[in-house]
């Protein structure tokens, strides 16, 4: 329970630890009229730890920065500040053999296996290439044996080896992509929307496969998704991302069962499995990361802030988005640990909000 709360002291037991990581993309300065270059804060001060063998989920909408965070984890992007440690070693500053060694430990599985496999290579070529890149299992016979082992692990058979990606079904393609990710015996898999491109009936197969592999290969999972059902099913801890920051993080039972941040509450309401028309519909869309709102970045859409402003008009100010509490508009909220539970919500009024336990699905 407390593992999720210890987000500051590193420990050797963590497969992945991320401390205060930011990634800013700097645009071009306007040629005329002065002004400074626009900065997009794709990831802004994110911290979390994933103990060995656990599953951490990153939830967010498009534009929340969750994909940038995934790329920071696997070293495809370098952080502007902060530190990403994989298996105790910092990712930044590695190069050559050390970087390749690190990359062997942490593998990325992408959403759309149709796009993530080279259309002109057979399954065997794709899998063998991964071994060649890392110089594992030297010798063609040894590589063939390893490929056959992994194919069996992901539930494909020898007949699939000579097929091209387009000759496989969606589920088989995703199995091949997973095989490529695990063939070099990694410790961590970063799964970017691993099932959302698949058919409903196949999704469950792949989820089951991933859970089996996690168990049998003692893998650590980092899942990036927008599907809260998947989070509830697979993850131990979760971070809810909005405009580059975690607005709420903690163990899944607490965050999904009793969300404290209004954004998490809206997400839960929007994706609950209940038939009834759930909660208020969240207005507007996620603002551009080039112009993150002042104060609490969620204040432009926050339904709770509107209620609070109506309740305490004296402490409210007028904004283009209606009358809102002054603190929400002006002060950036700091993370607030839950009184008894194991979650942290970055909201001024996290515990002053009317409790809205999301209806759990039957």
């Amino acid at each position: 329970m407390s593992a999720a709360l210890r987000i500051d002291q590193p420990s050797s037991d963590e497969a992945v630890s991320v401390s205060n990581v930011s990634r800013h993309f700097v645009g071009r300065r306007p040629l005329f009229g002065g002004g400074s270059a626009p900065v997009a804060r794709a990831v802004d001060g994110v911290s979390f730890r994933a103990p060995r063998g656990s599953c951490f989920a990153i939830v967010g909408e498009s534009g929340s920065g969750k994909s940038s965070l995934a790329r920071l984890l696997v070293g495809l992007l370098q952080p502007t500040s902060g530190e990403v440690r994989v298996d105790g070693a910092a990712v930044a500053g590695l190069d050559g053999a050390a970087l390749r060694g690190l990359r062997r430990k942490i593998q990325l599985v992408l959403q759309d296996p149709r796009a993530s496999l080279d259309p002109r290579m057979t399954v065997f070529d794709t899998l063998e290439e991964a071994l060649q890149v890392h110089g594992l299992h030297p010798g063609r016979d040894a590589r063939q044996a390893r490929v056959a082992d992994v194919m069996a692990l992901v539930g494909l058979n020898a007949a699939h080896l000579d097929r091209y990606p387009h000759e496989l079904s969606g589920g088989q393609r995703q199995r091949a992509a997973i095989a490529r990710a695990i063939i070099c015996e990694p410790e961590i898999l970063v799964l970017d929307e691993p099932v959302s491109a698949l058919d409903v009936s196949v999704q469950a197969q792949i989820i089951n496969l991933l859970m089996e592999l996690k168990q049998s290969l003692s893998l650590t999972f980092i899942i990036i998704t927008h599907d809260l059902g998947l989070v509830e099913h697979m993850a131990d801890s979760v971070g809810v991302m909005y405009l580059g920051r975690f607005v709420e993080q903690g163990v899944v039972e607490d965050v999904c069962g009793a969300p404290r941040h209004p954004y998490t509450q809206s997400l839960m309401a929007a994706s609950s499995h209940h038939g009834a028309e759930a909660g208020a519909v969240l207005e507007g869309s996620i603002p551009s990361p080039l112009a993150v709102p002042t104060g609490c970045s969620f204040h432009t859409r926050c339904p709770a802030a509107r209620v609070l402003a109506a309740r305490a008009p004296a402490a409210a100010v007028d904004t283009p988005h209606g009358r809102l509490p002054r603190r929400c508009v002006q002060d950036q909220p700091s993370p607030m640990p839950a009184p008894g539970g194991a979650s942290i919500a970055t909201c001024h009024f996290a515990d002053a909000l009317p409790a809205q336990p999301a209806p759990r699905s039957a």
Partner: protein
Amino acid sequence: MTAAMDTMALGATPPRAEARTPRSRWLTLRRIVSQPKGAIGLALVLGYLLLAIFGPMLAPLDPFKQNFAQTLKPPSALHWFGTDQLGRDVFSRILLGARATLGVGVGGVAFAFLVGVPLGVLAAWRRGWFDAIVMRAIDVMLSFPDIVFALAIVAILGANTQNVIIAVGVVSIPIFARTARAVTLSILAEPYVEGLSSLGARPSRIILRHVLPNISGTLLTLSTLLFASTLLSASGLGFLGLGTQPPFPEWGTMLGEARSYIRSHPHLATFPGLFLAGSALAFNLLGDALRTVYDPTSRGVAPRRSWLDRLRRAKVAPAGAPAGEGDAVPALSVRGLRLAFRTPAGLLEVVRGVDLTLQAGRTLAVVGESGSGKTSLLRAVATLATPAQVAVVEGSIAVGGESAVGLSPAALMELRRRKIGVVFQDAASALNPVLTVGAQLAEAVRIGTDLDAAAVRARCVALLEDVGISDPERRLAMYPHQFSGGMKQRIVIAIALAQDPQLLLADEPTSALDVTIQQQILALLRDIQRRRGMAILIVTHDLNLVARFADDVAVMYAGSLVEAGEAAAVLRSPLHPYAQALRSSVPGGSRRGAPLPAIAGEPPMVGSLPGGCAFRPRCERTRGRPECAAREPAARPVDGRLVACHFAEEGRA
């Protein structure tokens, strides 16, 4: 993606359309020859190649032998193309010149390819200053006319065949480099390249094993097209006396020599000119055909029915009578509908006997996986299925009491305009990026009416207000890219509503959107439905959406409805084993971390369905009972809904 796959399958016809089959070189060839321009181009190119190889051997007379008694003779039995000013046989000279002429073309293109492609690929890979320098240099090169540039090079290096090759090659380098850079950039943006980097693959491996094979199609096409222009540049040089030096014949040089006699002896210029023009045409045709084969936008809609097939065109089955049952005419009535893709191998049934009734003011959700035929069904109802690709084998579709099957294209368009609105999954591609939102909306409003500009504008403003877009006056002047995904979908909905349809068809309208935006769009659709009393047919794979939004649901599997009824009842207690499995395999519903009750196997492929019940191979209820294999279960009423299972009663909890 489910829908995307469906749509692709619909365009290309059989699902798993072999878009870019790496294995089958023969397929590429077949697809070239199946186009008239490809067949002609390929035949001509082969002819020219044979000419270049065997031409000199075939020459009937000595091409160098001068005969001053026989100068400038018109074509005759001895000299088929006449003789030139030195009395040499023009026909023989043309045959001999083929090799030099075509050799310069091939050499020039090869030179440009070998220099330009590595430059472009490197520029795309390195980016930064290298890219900037290469691109600026290319811009400078492109700002000179080709022939001037080539002239300058030959003038410096001296006139001979080898230098001509270099000159015409250099001229084409910028085009190769530019194209190679552009396609490399797009391949580098593919997720599998990112996956390779994260795997730890070296750049050289990525370039050689992944980028080059994937860009080869485009570059091959470009080479063929550039061959024609290279040939012409080379001949231009020959014409100016800077090409192959006499007495060796080359078509451009021959043309140049014929210049002085163009008035008195036009035949001298005609024949080399014809051969030259023919070769340029041949390579252009072939290049065009190749482009159709490799072009991503033509992929999937490439005519499966070749021009040969079109001669023996299958007959479209006539439509059934429009169904008008009871007093209230339903907004949509589909009876016994069977649809089939036309494929080279014959008809491939994708919708196998579907009945649907949708009353005004209600929402019907059709749920299914990729390949279930749900998108084909929707497109047929939307009257968007092209008869050349999809055949209505049997059954009827009636929209607001009017039959939508077997109409002329004009009548179909009229029906669609008056009664049907369609919202697609991907709003971004449903809008034209270069037109303002106002222009696109106005177009939809104006069709079939004679409103003046002010009235059209007023209507556009009202429509945008209807879909909840504030400040509509200003938004009309904006372009699609200035809107977020959710806003774009609102605009697409506004366009669909422009003609006050009775029936709104929505194909996965929210699956490309974020969860919170999905809710907004669904709330909007529901609100509009309430105000207009419109019927909505929605195609989706998302059971949560069905639960929240639909009144009725029809679960589709392998082209048939397996269970249909009121959404609440069907979702609460599904009876068909597929519907049951679908509901229980959604994560979040079961115990955390425990294995999900997954449906074994893969969704079936159209065209290879098992006999009897199509769900049989994946079904847990059949347990090998002979009924399931013997005949396909018909939909029958059970517990207030229709279920197509021999043992539907066993599904009761």
